């Protein structure tokens, strides 16, 4: 167990360094200057531009910049955001909890929904229920994230104005609301983006879960349990679900990158002030330090997520626990 953990941690660290390196060089090898937008302000004098370049070390060779960058990142210093005019780390620290809230809620809901539907489908295999649910799951599975978000917005924010169009809180009234008013405010803003992300990832989970249950059904011990004359419900709960849920946990690790990618688009559409929106805005303003850092933090999140999934799996699966 400890060896497993150490191994995975090391692997995670390697991945993060790899991502950092790849993004850093790709971004800096591109023609044009990382500071372009800022430096091109018509108000700036050439002397001031030179000073800015020196401040950010842009007058140094690329290799030196890379070493400095990695060193700085290791110390937790992610650089300065030109578009937000504040440290990148501060901006990310503000955005990350919002993304985690959105993703946490969506993750919980989509696993609950996806597993329930998948099991239901598998139990009613080849009936109309199975086929209809399968088609619905495939429908959502085939959909671009941002398009579902746009359609949800069109439907529930414009045509039927039930939910706000975007943001996380009412920018004006929120500070003046009472405690419950604030909770309600956040929930009403959370509803649409969370719904969209939930539907999208639940579709994939349901498809996976259905297959997993069907796989287990074929196993001998289920047949044995049935043959012993156990009641169907007890077969399902005691033998089938327990074993069919196991692979779904690994899905947690796999679902995370997809969910994070989806969150980029959903946050963009609903102006949810999280990592995704931050990244997209950073792209629009060519804020390279912010783009690089967002990618790094996102892959750390993914690595951490799959680490958690691995540990969970090890805890649940007795075969791995003994190691």
């Amino acid at each position: 167990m400890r060896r497993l953990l150490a191994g995975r941690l090391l692997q995670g660290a390697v991945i993060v360094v790899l991502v950092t390196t790849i993004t850093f060089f790709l971004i800096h090898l591109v023609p044009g200057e990382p500071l372009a937008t800022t430096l091109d302000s018509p108000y700036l004098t050439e002397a001031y531009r030179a000073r800015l370049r020196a401040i950010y070390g842009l007058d140094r060779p690329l290799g030196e910049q890379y070493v400095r960058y990695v060193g700085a990142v290791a110390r937790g210093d992610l650089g300065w955001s030109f578009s937000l005019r504040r440290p990148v780390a501060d901006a990310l620290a503000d955005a990350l909890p919002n993304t985690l809230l959105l993703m946490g809620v969506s993750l919980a809901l989509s696993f609950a929904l996806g597993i329930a539907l998948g099991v239901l489908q598998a139990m009613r295999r080849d009936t109309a229920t199975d086929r209809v649910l399968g088609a619905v799951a495939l429908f959502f599975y085939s959909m671009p994230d941002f398009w579902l978000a746009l359609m949800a917005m069109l439907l529930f924010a414009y045509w039927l104005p039930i939910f706000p169009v975007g943001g996380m809180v009412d920018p004006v009234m929120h500070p003046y609301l009472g405690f419950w008013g604030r909770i309600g405010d956040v929930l009403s803003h959370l509803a649409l983006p969370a719904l969209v992300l939930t539907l999208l990832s639940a579709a994939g989970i349901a498809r996976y879960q259905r297959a997993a249950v069907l796989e287990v059904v074929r196993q001998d011990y289920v047949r044995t349990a049935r043959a012993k004359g156990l009641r169907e419900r007890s077969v399902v709960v005691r033998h089938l679900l327990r074993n069919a849920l196991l692979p779904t946990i690994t899905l947690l690790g796999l679902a995370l990158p997809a969910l994070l990618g989806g969150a980029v688009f959903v946050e963009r559409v609903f102006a949810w002030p999280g990592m995704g929106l931050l990244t997209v805005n950073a792209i629009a303003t060519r804020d390279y330090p912010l783009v690089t850092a967002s990618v790094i933090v996102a892959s750390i999140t993914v690595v951490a997520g799959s680490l958690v999934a691995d540990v969970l799996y090890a805890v649940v699966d007795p075969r791995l626990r003994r190691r």
Partner: protein
Amino acid sequence: MDIRIPLRRLVSLAAPLAAVSLLACGGDDRDASAGDVGGTLVISVTGDADHLLPPLYETITGRQVSDQLFDRLAEIGDDLNTVGDEGFTPALAERWEWAEDSLSIAFHIDPDARWHDGRPVRAGDVRFTHALYVDPAVASPFAPLLDDIDSVQVRDSLTAVVWFARRTPQQFFDATYQMSILPEHLLAGVDRANIRAAAFSRAPIGSGRFRFARWTPGQTIELVADTANYRDRPRLDRAIWTVSPDPVTAITKVLRNEADFVEILRPEDQAEVSRRDDLKLVPYPALQYAAVFLNANVDGTSGPHPIFGDRETRRALTMAVDREAMVRNVFDTLGLVGIGPVTRGVATADTTIEQLPFDRERAARVLDSLGWRDANGDGVRERAGRPLEFTLITPTSSSFRMRMAVLLQEQLAQVGAKVNVEPLEFGTFIQRQNRRRFDAAMGGVGMDPLPGGVKQSWSAAGIGAGGSNYTGYASPTFDALVDSGAAAMDPDDARRYFRRAYETIVADAPAIWLYELRPVGAAHVRIQPAGLRADGWWAHLADWTIPADQRIDRDRIGLRGAPVAEGASPDAGAPADTARR
């Protein structure tokens, strides 16, 4: 589409929430203002402010907010006259006197003027402000605009004398319009080189009619009324800027009544707003125009451009473009076709100048006669083997100009000219434009109210480093006329010179004058805007009103300060005015 109207009447989730909010506020109306003062104005903008310190801001939002927090010595008149002090009204200076030789002006500070921390405004603050603006360590973008000011001298605690290096028509304008007065006692100890990181620039204390309340980066900036202000309290209680990442969301906030005012609408939204009875259109003048810069001489080195080096070709291409229809497409009936290197809001503008007509057949004939013919039948004309094809660089940051580019492409295709639109991110666009590395550029020009500004962009002196004459247009006639106009001390003389200058340049067609930005904003019906000035609709924000009988929930927040931190009880916020007096 029809089904949308009844549907909208469905009770939304937001409504009960708003009701909860009032209860939470406790309905304490003690400090809510009566009569025609009071109310909350929520302004929807697309970008956050950078700094709230006048010498530092480079964003429009930064300027909008700073202008409420800080005062100038005098305010320019609504006609934006820049010659002498005609039309200027007192602000921090209650009056002023010109010296006999006009080389200095003595400004008498209003004795009632106070900083928001309660300290009086003094002449020393004016001297300090000028020194800070021009300090190279501060690197203020506005420093070059103060070149004609020699120094500021303190005659007594309430009299500041501004000395000028030379006599110019716009010297009063320079001393007032370009400088907002800062508090010496709060900024004297700040390290000039790191002033951008100073806490003051994110929570400023000024002397304006609004005072700073809070700034949540990327989301909101909130100001409240300075109720004891020497120039009278604002007629609003509160002004809040709410930041959206893109124009669509910014407009949507107003359409959904989450915000009260948005400064620019697209035609699709204008149609929506005019259908609504809870919103109204707010057109206002501006000082920006857009034109297709036709580069006569790329890089300024490689000789005349094969297409745009020729005046007649430029004129023919201009005549091939239906600018009226393009403007109708992008701005509907509210747009204005460009009239030259000037906007209608500028004092010297002249709308009667003869423009090149839209005449596609004539354009085709002229192109034929110039030797531009489609010999190989591919739909694109050639001359001496060189196709009539060019690249049009366009900044992606401007949805209007992007749209104009797509329209222009098709317009010119009709006369056998091929346009390749190259969308560029704004920074790259500026870079290419400044280095004159383009065939044609979808340029936008923001003017300051000074008539001489046209010189920078279109005279021979503006070609090359430091200048902004990107097309390489060089006409001695035009240059001479602009110089005479800018030097004229009499406004009528100035107008005459400028009219002839504009006639010259329009006939030479160094650019296709597309449109003058005639912005149309949207406001909730209860908002009564005041004095929308061409150089900034926000100039008289403190005089905007919300009639008492039309107020909604957020207008009744009153003057209570916003809670300091998330989670803190709203009642914990100190009443706005206890910090003073």
